[in-house]
């Protein structure tokens, strides 16, 4: 069976989710964050009434519960019900008594760790249990490379007992040969790395291995939000178009929160809004329509990932200005969706005719919208997101 992670593009890249009997390595570059993703997986398992077995050697189970609560996942109830069980290999190390079902009394004792873990795994056999190791790097730090040689057998047990294994690993300064070995040990390899595009630095994830085979890497930018957890993140969608086309209305209608600098209903600096939609998060930059502000448009066009071009469907005479704005912002050639706005007005041209009059290439989608009624806006956003991320390919 396959279980979705509930993170949109990750599921796509894993062909639907995590398979029963499979092992997955979450590989984090230094200073990136993978534990939140682990919590999110736990929360999604538990919310489906599927059990979670959580091996922990980096903090106390209480901290896991507190941290995940900050992201909006209330997991304590599941621990009381016994659906969430910890293998506590941390408390004893700091001299705290542990009340967990599985406790490792001497975290320096390899044999005890192995024995307790295998007992726990057997207790949870045949239930599609998510088995988490947080973290593999801490085990390696304590016991050396030898730990890595134990993994194939652990993976075999995960396979035999129908669990879903997920290991968290942070790539500190380990021997390159060891890293190579670790990267090939699991069925799936999800990698979290920071990427610098010009000056903006954002974290991305990518799937490097799936079902034991290398796959073509697709890079997906994301951020963690509280509450909510991992969101696919588009730092900039440019909303542009001629004067009075309805850009500000579009930005505000799409945003959970937005700010604008305007005078008498006309934007004079910038509309800015956050969009949250189906696991995606995007920041919208609405530009100024009037020509005299074009220098600012040129400046704000940088590092755009996708463009919404808003035009007034009743004013075909402004269409050439719309295309000029794309050129000025230097965003021509980026993923683009045209909003043929004001479809509710009597003289509005239908989207197909707007497309024809603008002489747009056939692959550029034009959607008819009524921004004041929020009509069709999310359709347009969905189209743009699938263009940006090449979804459904």
């Amino acid at each position: 069976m396959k279980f979705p992670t509930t993170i949109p593009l990750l599921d796509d890249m894993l062909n639907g989710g995590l398979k029963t009997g499979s092992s997955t390595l979450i590989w984090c570059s230094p200073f990136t964050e993978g534990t939140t993703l682990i919590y999110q997986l736990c929360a999604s398992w538990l919310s489906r009434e599927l059990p979670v077995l959580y091996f922990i050697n980096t903090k106390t189970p209480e901290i896991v519960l507190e941290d995940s609560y900050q992201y909006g996942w209330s997991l304590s109830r599941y621990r009381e019900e016994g659906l969430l069980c910890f293998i506590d290999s941390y408390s004893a190390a700091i001299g705290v008594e542990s009340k967990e079902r599985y406790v490792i009394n001497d975290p320096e004792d390899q044999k005890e760790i192995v024995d307790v873990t295998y007992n726990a795994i057997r207790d949870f056999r045949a239930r599609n249990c998510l088995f988490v190791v947080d973290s593999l790097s801490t085990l390696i730090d304590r016991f050396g490379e030898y730990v890595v040689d134990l993994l194939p057998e652990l993976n075999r047990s995960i396979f035999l007992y129908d669990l879903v294994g997920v290991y968290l690993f942070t790539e500190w300064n380990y021997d390159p040969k060891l890293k190579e070995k670790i990267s090939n040990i699991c069925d799936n390899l999800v990698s979290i790395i920071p990427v610098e595009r010009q000056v903006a630095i954002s974290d991305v994830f990518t799937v490097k291995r799936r079902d034991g085979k290398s796959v073509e890497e697709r890079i997906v930018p994301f951020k963690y939000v509280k509450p909510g957890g991992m969101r696919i993140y588009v730092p900039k969608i440019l909303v542009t178009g001629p004067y009075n086309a309805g850009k500000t209305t579009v930005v505000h209608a799409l945003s959970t929160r937005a700010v604008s600098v305007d005078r008498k209903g006309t934007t004079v600096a910038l509309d800015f809004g956050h969009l949250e939609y189906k696991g995606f998060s995007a920041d919208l930059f609405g530009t100024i329509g009037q020509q005299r502000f074009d220098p600012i448009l040129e400046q704000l066009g940088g590092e755009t990932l996708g463009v919404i071009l808003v035009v007034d469907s009743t004013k075909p005479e402004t269409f050439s200005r719309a295309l000029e704005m794309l050129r000025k912002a230097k965003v021509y050639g980026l993923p683009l969706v045209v909003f043929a706005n004001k479809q509710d007005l009597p003289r509005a041209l239908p989207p197909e005719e707007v497309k024809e009059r603008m002489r747009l290439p056939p692959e550029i989608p034009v959607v008819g919208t009524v921004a004041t009624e929020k009509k069709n806006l999310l359709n347009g956003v969905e189209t743009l997101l699938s263009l940006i991320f090449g979804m459904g390919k």
Partner: protein
Amino acid sequence: MEMASTSATPRELLKEILSELNRGAGIQSSAIVSRDGLLVASVMSEDVDAEAFAAMTATMLGAAETAFSELKKGVAERVIVEGSRAKIVAVGAGKDLILVCMSDPSVQLGLILHQIRRSVEKVKKVFA
């Protein structure tokens, strides 16, 4: 982008530079923003929408620079906004970046400018 001789990532380093700046007299929060309005790093209280602040800062400085170049009076060095409850100072930090900080309204401008200048030099070194 080459890094200075240190093992921390650019982002960590930038955050440290900002924390150091915030430790100075009267400065409450600060951020590094790309000229095109994206947040690069920030150290500010959680109730501030840092992304929106970044976008607006870039717009402010961009508008000031445009105004100056239209006047043919050289380049705009910085934007200073004196509010009733805060001062905001934004300065360019190299070709691509802006450093912006917010301080208590009573803090002397000269002091802020002095501190921010030192931080700008550090930021430039990170991306040197």
